[in-house]
């Protein structure tokens, strides 16, 4: 199954356009045509042509930027759709599907009926497709790309013989070399002795030929279906009490956790959708501090969200989905170890997180910088592990704040004897320093525009020990921290 115009068909399905149409993609320093419609092809445009040339040929060309990830998602969707014909569906390059319909054709009423059905359904969806059916994957590919149709059983050689050598999925240089030798068609290649060809072109050519003729097996790797963690419970009578909703959630959780356990994974984000009788629905989102699949531990975490939900005239459908799941391999059961302690802490972080937001429970991680406010990182505790060593060559203050200017009696590079800070008159008893810290010029930081800083620890006669700095390039004294 080959979709020669997958990308442009997809774009036209979303937003139809009159006239010739092309998708542009920046390749080799120029905007080039990535994919184009049949109408544009008839006007003489081709793939790989620069958009400037194409517009010169065809002034009324409609173009849009190409979306490669979107195209591959679309192809995966088509692969899922194709499982309606047979269970064994694999992707073939960026614009093809390969189906192993062995034993499944009678369900559609024969091979030609199967192809007709495919063609009709895809045409209705607005996709142009070319189909080939043969005994081997290679032959089917050749038919799809070069001569649409069905190769009758046992007559693959006859069907392939008139096709050009490119039908064997060969690289362009190999095709050129074969053509230069006078081997234009597959039939000519089959008639040539194998050994000299293998010596000249390597084993890949013969392997491709054998695969097309069915002498060598070729596997189709079907796409594994991603596990789906969504479960629904529909009730004959609406419910409204918190306990009832909790009981319903417990049932759903049991089933969901069994499914998670079978996949060795744990839920990280859970979404409980409560649909009311009047069709309105509410979502309770639960973000967990760690992957989890123990229903008894998850259920109490839902209570707060369920209590806050408005039942209205009653709830008649519950749907629970693990929107984010992470691998969670089973662990050895110990009586009381660090693992147990960590699980309890994760539960607490989750519970706090439902109130203030999971990203507001944080921890400090050391960072590699001399700038005081950049010497640590603040990371959400649920998504980080404590790590790294805290080393500071000089004592650092216990609390840190944005620099606050002081009014000093005698400004200068030496610490002031007397100064006022936060409406307190303070007198310096001992000054330890200076420690010069220069700004990190490779980072833009408005706070460090006043240039380098000389940090001092000032012990005042009043008792408070302050972390002050002087900016020689823009004279002034500031307090940035306190040692208590």
């Amino acid at each position, binding site marked *: 199954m080959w979709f020669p115009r997958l990308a442009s068909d997809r774009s036209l399905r979303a937003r139809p356009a009159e006239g010739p149409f092309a998708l542009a993609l920046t390749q080799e320093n120029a905007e080039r045509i990535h994919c184009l419609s049949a109408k544009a092809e008839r006007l003489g445009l081709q793939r790989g042509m620069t958009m400037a040339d194409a517009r010169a040929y065809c002034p009324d060309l409609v173009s849009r930027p190409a979306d490669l990830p979107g195209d591959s998602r679309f192809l995966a969707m088509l692969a899922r759709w194709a499982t309606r014909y047979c269970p064994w569906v694999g992707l073939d390059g960026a614009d093809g599907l390969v189906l192993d319909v062995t034993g499944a054709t009678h369900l559609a009423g024969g091979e030609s009926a199967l192809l007709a059905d495919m063609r009709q359904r895809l045409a209705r969806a607005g996709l142009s497709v070319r189909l080939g059916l043969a005994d081997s994957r290679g032959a089917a590919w050749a038919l799809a790309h070069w001569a649409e149709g069905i190769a009758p059983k046992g007559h693959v050689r006859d069907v392939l013989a008139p096709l050009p050598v490119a039908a064997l999925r060969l690289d362009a240089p190999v095709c050129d070399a074969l053509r230069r030798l006078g081997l234009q068609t597959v039939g000519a290649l089959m008639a040539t002795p194998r050994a000299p060809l293998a010596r000249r072109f390597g084993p890949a050519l013969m392997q491709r030929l054998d695969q097309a003729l069915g002498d060598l097996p070729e596997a189709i790797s079907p796409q594994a279906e991603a596990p789906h963690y969504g479960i629904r419970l529909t009730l004959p009578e609406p419910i409204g009490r918190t306990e009832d909703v909790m009981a319903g959630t417990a049932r759903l959780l049991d089933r969901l956790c069994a499914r998670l356990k079978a996949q060795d994974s744990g839920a990280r984000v859970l979404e409980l959708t409560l649909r009311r009788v009047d069709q309105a629905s509410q979502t309770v989102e639960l973000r967990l501090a760690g992957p989890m699949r123990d229903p008894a531990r998850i259920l109490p975490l839902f209570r707060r969200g369920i209590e806050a939900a408005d039942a209205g005239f009653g709830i008649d459908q519950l749907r629970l989905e693990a929107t984010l799941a992470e691998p969670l391999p089973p662990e050895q059961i110990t009586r009381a170890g660090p693992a147990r302690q960590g699980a309890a*802490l994760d539960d607490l972080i989750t519970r706090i997180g439902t109130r203030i937001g999971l990203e507001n429970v*944080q921890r400090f991680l050391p960072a590699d910088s001399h700038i*005081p406010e950049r010497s640590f990182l603040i990371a959400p505790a649920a998504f980080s592990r404590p790590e790294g060593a805290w080393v500071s060559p000089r004592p650092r*203050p216990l*609390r*840190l*704040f944005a620099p606050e200017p002081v009014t000093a009696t005698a400004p200068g590079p030496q610490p002031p004897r007397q100064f006022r800070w936060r409406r307190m008159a303070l007198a310096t008893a001992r000054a*330890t320093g200076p420690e010069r810290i220069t700004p990190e010029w490779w980072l833009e930081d408005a706070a460090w525009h006043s240039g380098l800083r000389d940090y001092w620890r000032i012990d005042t006669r009043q008792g408070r020990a302050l972390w002050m700095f002087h900016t020689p390039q823009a004279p002034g004294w500031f307090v940035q921290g306190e040692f*208590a």
Partner: protein
Amino acid sequence: MTAPPALRPGRVHEVGGPAAWAFAAVQAAQGRGPVLWLREAWLAEMPNPAGLAGFFDPARLLLAQTRNQTDTLAVAEEALRDGTVPFVVIDITQPLGLTEGRRLQLAARDGQATGLCLIPEGAGSNAAETRWLASPLYDPAPPSGGADSTLMRWELKKNKSGTSGLWDVRWDAATHRLDVVSPPGERPQPAGPPG
């Protein structure tokens, strides 16, 4: 000299004064396990992990940033009742009523965790087990000759199950120990030059 009494577990205590953070850090250093520090996100003053490292390993610290005091108290109650975190520091910005203070006490009793409220001046609650006033002192003769004196005066102003008192203490960062220092009048003066 007797050492200042340790904070009773399963209760909520209060500390005020300019050296309240150092008091909290010393208390955290004397326990084990994680420390939860609750603060409102808008507050300008931030705990500095490099400074805390002189007291305890900052990897033990969890920081919860809340929107307002209501959230702070709710999270504090949750954490104290859970008991997984043995030491919870609560940065209070507005005076606590008796109800809130009592609820925190009950939560701490259930979870056997210790709570410590950092209170602004005069914002204590009557429900607190102890109330301390910590203020830094100028240390004319620090033991290591300079840079890292942490001399403080801890005043126990209210104690529901004991007497009040006053201690001058100094945190020894090298040995992670709290040294009690004699009051100023009785302190040995640095000896004059011989001869």
